[in-house]
């Protein structure tokens, strides 16, 4: 007679018999997250730089991008790509939707981080660079952005953690990510407990080192450095 405890040992054994399923989902989550982080960084840097430029139209475009994606839920954006675009005739694979959806959404947050980073660099730097004949792109690339890296690393890492967590939205559109695999195993075997705990543990393994590193790095930065930090410790806890 098998024990009916939802966390009974035999349920765990049954689940680990299916470990490939979880492994596949875990890999898919890592792949989507990695590509989405790259996309978010590219979009974030481009729009972050644009939003500090002097051109009103460019600043407006960046503002619209940030406000739209920060103020509407990711769920709706992803379902729009999945259902809306499909009805309009454009069928994207769930993998593509994952990368695009999560990447564009977090790109808006990254752009705010980059913008705050650029604002923390004294104006004198820009004036000095200009006086030496640097063009806009040149001084951004060689003078301003390299200096922001140190201070924007902690909030960027927190964004990466949130991004990894948000890839779970793929489960809603059967994206074969970790959350989807865990959920489908839970509902097919009715072993909810082991399945969810194992999935949670795998997410934790991805996120915890990143989040802890970001916190430690920032504490060190505050202790050693007189650089003005544009981010409150509080502001950073923000998820999205």
């Amino acid at each position, binding site marked *: 007679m098998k024990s009916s405890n*939802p966390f009974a040992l035999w349920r765990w054994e049954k689940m680990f018999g299916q470990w490939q399923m979880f492994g596949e989902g875990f890999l898919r989550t890592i792949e989507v997250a990695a590509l989405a982080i790259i996309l978010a960084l590219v979009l974030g840097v481009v729009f972050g730089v644009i939003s500090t430029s002097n051109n009103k139209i460019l600043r407006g475009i960046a503002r619209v991008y940030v*406000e*739209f994606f*920060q*103020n*509407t*839920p*990711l*769920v*709706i954006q992803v*379902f*729009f790509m999945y*259902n*809306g675009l499909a*009805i*309009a*005739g454009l069928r994207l694979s769930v993998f593509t939707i994952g990368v695009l959806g999560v990447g564009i959404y977090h790109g808006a947050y990254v752009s705010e981080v980059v913008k705050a980073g650029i604002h923390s660099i004294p104006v004198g730097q820009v004036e000095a660079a200009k006086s030496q004949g640097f063009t806009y792109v040149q001084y951004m690339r060689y003078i301003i952005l390299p200096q922001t890296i140190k201070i924007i690393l902690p909030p960027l890492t927190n964004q990466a*953690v949130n991004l990894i*967590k*948000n*890839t*779970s*939205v793929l*489960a*809603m559109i059967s994206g074969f990510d970790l*959350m989807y695999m*865990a*959920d489908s195993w*839970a509902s097919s075997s009715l072993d*909810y*407990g082991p399945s*969810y705990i194992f*999935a*949670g543990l795998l*997410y*934790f393994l991805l*996120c*915890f080192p990143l*989040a802890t590193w970001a916190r430690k790095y920032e504490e060190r930065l505050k202790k050693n450095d007189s650089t003005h930090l544009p981010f*409150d*410790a*509080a*502001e*950073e*806890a*923000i*998820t*999205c």
Partner: protein
Amino acid sequence: MLELFQNVFTPSNVQFLAQGMGLTLLLSVIIIITSVIFGTILGLLRSYEKRFFGKVASFYIEMFRNTPLLLWILVCCFMIPLGTVVMRGALALILYTSAVIAEIVRGGLNSIPDGQFEAAKSQGFTLIQTLAYIVLPQCFKNIIPSLLSQVITTVKDTSFLQVVAIPEYTRSGFVVMGRYTQTAEVFLIFATLAVGYFVICFSLSMVVRTYQKRTSIAR
């Protein structure tokens, strides 16, 4: 064009969507109030109690901050045998949001110098009095922008509840959408959903911005 609007915004659809919006707002308010209380307690414990309860608070915060919200919604809705699905969904969001707010509160507490405690003690304040009258008011003043940003995030996060068929705004939008097949109609419903959230979240973000501007001038 007018016909399209008449097709989609029938009185029954509008009423259904309005009910969804009502539930979204109600859930958001309940979740935020409860999470602020619970999160403040967790944040205080993590900052000032270094023994057992502080460890428990740290464990709780790290556990919820490093796992997806969707996981907790599924856990609460499928594994807790009590209450209605709406209550269980709200519980998931409260548990998750509390951990985030606890970290925000901890950030605010970090900025309060130890001297404040010593001064309060020398005036005969008990610990509870010190926290209630001296430490927390200063802390909350500093973290209001972050808290408001978290409110925006929470309003958006309620849309995750659609996965367990809780009829909040997103879910009601999707239900309405199921009756339409034309591209224009479906797009219009998506736009309605996006605009609904946008209006709430954007007005909140304007509040944050005005507040930040005002305090930065005052400083």
